[in-house]
């Protein structure tokens, strides 16, 4: 997910090893897409009520397994999810300045450092709600009849976007397919008294 580029390295390629002038050095690797400018967290105005701060601090504390009042970069997405947000992994990576895998595991952030990150996600203009899930599923509704094939959705979710693994897909799909293997993603359910797929996704927010 995170590009291999070391964020500390200058954007311009600066090979420390002396390159002989003559060699027409081909690009060492296909130039990665220019890294998005990291989000300027210091500019984010954090606006949470005291109650919210209490909730956030508590959730944050649950994730601190080391006891240093910090959490690792690779926990940030989950804390945000625990707090009702649905960031993509890409959103979080961008927030963290596209960290390397090593940084994801080892860099830690304080609660104060975490708050502007959370605020940014909360302020994010393209947050998905019920309608977005319906629209998202509609993309895969071949017949335009308000249902998607369970098998098709499984394939989509494991090959596109931020792929889910099999266990995750099983968990997601549990109880969603009707007797024809179809998922009704909007409107009335067939004869089950359960929420439609899309409302399941928003249910716990």
């Amino acid at each position, binding site marked *: 997910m995170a590009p291999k580029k070391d964020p500390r390295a200058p954007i311009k390629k600066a090979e420390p090893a002396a390159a002989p002038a003559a060699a027409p050095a081909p690009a060492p690797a296909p130039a990665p897409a220019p890294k998005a400018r990291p989000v300027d967290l210091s500019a984010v105005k954090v606006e949470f009520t005291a*109650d919210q701060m209490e909730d956030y601090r*508590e*959730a944050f504390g*649950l994730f601190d397994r080391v006891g240093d009042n910090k959490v690792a970069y690779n926990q940030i*997405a*989950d804390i945000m*999810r*625990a707090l*009702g*947000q*649905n*960031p*993509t*992994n*890409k*959103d979080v990576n961008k927030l963290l300045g596209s960290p390397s895998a090593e940084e994801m595991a080892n860099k830690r952030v304080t609660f104060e450092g975490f708050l502007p990150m959370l605020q940014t996600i909360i302020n994010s203009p393209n947050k*998905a709600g019920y309608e*977005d*899930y319906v*629209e*998202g*599923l509609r*993309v*895969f509704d*071949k017949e335009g009849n308000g249902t998607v*094939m369970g*098998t*098709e959705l499984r*394939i*989509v*979710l494991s*090959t*596109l*976007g*931020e*792929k*889910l693994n099999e266990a*995750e897909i099983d*968990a*997601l799909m549990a109880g969603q397919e009707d007797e024809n293997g179809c998922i009704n993603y909007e409107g009335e359910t067939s004869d089950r008294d359960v929420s439609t797929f899309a409302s*399941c*996704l*928003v*249910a*716990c*927010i």
Partner: protein
Amino acid sequence: MDCHNQEEHSRPQEEEDIMDIPLDDPEANRAAAKIQAGFRGHMTRKKMKPEDKAEGEERQEDRGQ
């Protein structure tokens, strides 16, 4: 609809009939990513619940009423 890359996977014929997976389609990828993000959020919250519940209930009593 563009065809999927056949050299990437050799899918059985019936799967090809079921769908052409739009691997490169940004809209499809965005749609998938949104669903996946929603799912991951949902699952994380679901997992947190048993842990949270004991404390959460107490606090709710303090705060709610």
